[in-house]
């Protein structure tokens, strides 16, 4: 008796794969939270309120895009929030010297790039572990801000500088939200459609193998640190513009929120896997949860607990399910 065996040329149909992906899980979570928010609070479904809510995540998400690439490549940058502080301090200093808005933007971006380059050189040239390097520069960058400012603040930013953090492009669409969307598309294309993006995945999965395949590992990593610094500079411009002043404590604790956003977005903390759409969804989820709970006047500490629980459950549930199904 002959047995007919069929060997499928692919294990799952593309649609099935898409449905089972991390992103669709996140989408379901996001839609659910949106739905529950609109039921829980009568003020949630208001265009202006939703517009205000986007400020909870836009600046952090800008950095999260670059951070996602960095983490996929197997590195991390914990100094992003202090880079914001240093870039903002430098811009405040430039204001005191009488510079106008275009110069301020250049200063913000420039300081971000320099900080990123500093991290990048230490990691790629001297071969130091990025987590150690950036824990060090975390204290260094913010320390400089504290030395310059002490308990003082820089203020007096030009009126047109306020546009970046407080301006509207059209109706309720803020400048920050627009920038967030544009950057999402740009980073999505870079990671998913270019050779550079494929090199990032390759390095994250196997840096030695990538090097032997002709990828210039150190150069790619250096560029990723530069990019993360640059995005921190962009976020610094937006945040400083939104606050209208600079204090050395600006963006305190953001590095962990940004890493949380990236991990929630499905980027493997060990490197080698993750997508930009995942990070975009994670940004929306974190923004919606904090805003929704804020509308119900849930204390901030409970919000942190909720975010933590969300992170653990979203990561743990599929794995637990997988284990249970195999058994």
């Amino acid at each position, binding site marked *: 008796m002959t047995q007919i065996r069929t060997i499928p040329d692919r294990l799952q149909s593309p649609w*099935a794969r898409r*449905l*089972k992906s991390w992103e*669709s*899980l996140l989408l*379901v*979570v996001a839609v*659910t939270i949106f739905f*529950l*928010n609109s*039921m*829980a*609070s*009568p*003020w*949630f479904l*208001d265009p202006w*309120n939703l517009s*205000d*809510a986007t*400020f*909870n995540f836009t600046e952090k998400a800008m950095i999260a895009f670059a951070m996602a690439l960095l983490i996929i490549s197997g590195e991390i940058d914990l100094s992003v929030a202090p880079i914001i502080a240093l870039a903002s301090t430098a811009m405040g200093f430039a204001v005191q010297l009488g510079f106008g808005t275009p110069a301020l933007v250049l200063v913000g971006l420039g300081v971000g790039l320099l900080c990123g380059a500093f991290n990048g050189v230490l990691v790629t040239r001297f071969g130091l572990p990025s987590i150690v390097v950036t824990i060090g520069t975390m204290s260094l960058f913010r320390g400089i801000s504290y030395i310059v400012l002490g308990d003082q*603040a820089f*203020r007096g930013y030009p009126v047109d500088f*306020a546009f970046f*953090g*407080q301006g509207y492009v059209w109706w309720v669409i803020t400048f920050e939200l627009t920038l967030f969307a544009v950057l999402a598309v740009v980073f999505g294309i870079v990671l998913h459609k270019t050779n550079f993006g494929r090199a990032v995945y390759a390095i994250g999965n196997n840096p030695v193998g990538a090097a032997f395949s002709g990828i210039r590992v150190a150069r790619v990593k250096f560029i990723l640190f530069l990019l993360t610094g640059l995005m921190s500079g962009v976020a610094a411009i937006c*945040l400083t513009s*939104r*606050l*209208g*002043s600079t*204090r050395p*404590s*600006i*963006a*305190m*604790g953001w590095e962990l929120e940004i890493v949380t956003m990236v991990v929630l977005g499905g980027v493997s903390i060990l490197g080698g896997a993750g997508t930009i759409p995942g990070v975009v969804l994670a940004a929306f989820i974190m923004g919606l949860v*904090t*805003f*929704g*709970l*804020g*509308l*119900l*006047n*849930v*204390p*901030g*500490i409970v*919000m942190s607990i*909720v975010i933590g*629980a*969300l992170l653990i*459950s*979203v990561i743990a*549930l*599929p794995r637990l*399910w997988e284990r249970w*199904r195999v058994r």
Partner: protein
Amino acid sequence: MKRRIFTTFAASLGLAAGLMGSTAMADDPVRIALVVKALGIGFFEAANEGAQEAAAELGNVEVIYTGPTDTTAEGQIEVINSLIAQRVDAIAVSANDTDALVPALRRAMDRGITVISWDSGVAPEGRQMHLNPSSNELIGGMIIRLAADHMPDGGKVALLSATTTSTNQNIWIEEMMKVMDQYPDIEVVSTVYGDDLADKSYREATGLMQTHPDLDAIIAPTSVGIVAAARAVEDAGKVGQVNVTGLGLPSEMAGAIESGASKSFAIWNPIDLGYSAAYLAYSLATGTAEAGPGAEIPMGRMGTLTLDENSEGAMADPFIYDASNIEEFKDIF
């Protein structure tokens, strides 16, 4: 496979449903948000207690006690944004940053929300008025009165300040000197500076007792100095001879009150402060009073607040803490 998606969906739904509570709506109460620097600080919990007391007294007032997890301006802005979205009637904020909250608070005012600051102020363009716990004049008068109360026959007092350039302390001492003519029997023999360092303050206080053996009181208008001076008096065995007083925190001064090194000291009362802030916010939000230079706004049992040219007002004399009430307050702040 379908089942798996359904299960993850159900799980996330259940999770999210657990997170969202339900909002109960009363018949349009006046909603006053008391925004503090950070939650979980005894001083602000006590202020909330006062605000709730004001709410109970006024009736049909809901006090929303809220604030960020840590003392950042960004955290407070997120809180303020969600309060704007809820269209609360008033926001009373103790600010983490004088300037950074201004854009957010201006937006609140643009949307018809009454905004006041209390305790730690916001720049004038970001609020309608500011409530100071006290004023330099009242503090200056209080610190000498505290010493004089326990010196019926007059005597010698010395000042232990922070640094020579500490603005607050210098102003308070200046204000104190202005009222010295009301105390003809009291002589200020010396002013020393402990730089707000515990060990230096201790040494300076010890030195004061050596150079002036007949000293009756040490006035320290700084929370570091007053504790150090009390310990110096205890160590010198002069409890009962030298009374330490000034401005201090109940939690740090409880030991000195117990040992008798300090008979009394003063600092603002957070309960009164929260009570007044809620009362003022209510008066402004309901339109029974209007903020502006020279305005007089009622604040219940705390009397009436008079605003100066910057729309700022001082609540009251610093509150006196002694053996009768230290137990109650030492756990608060």
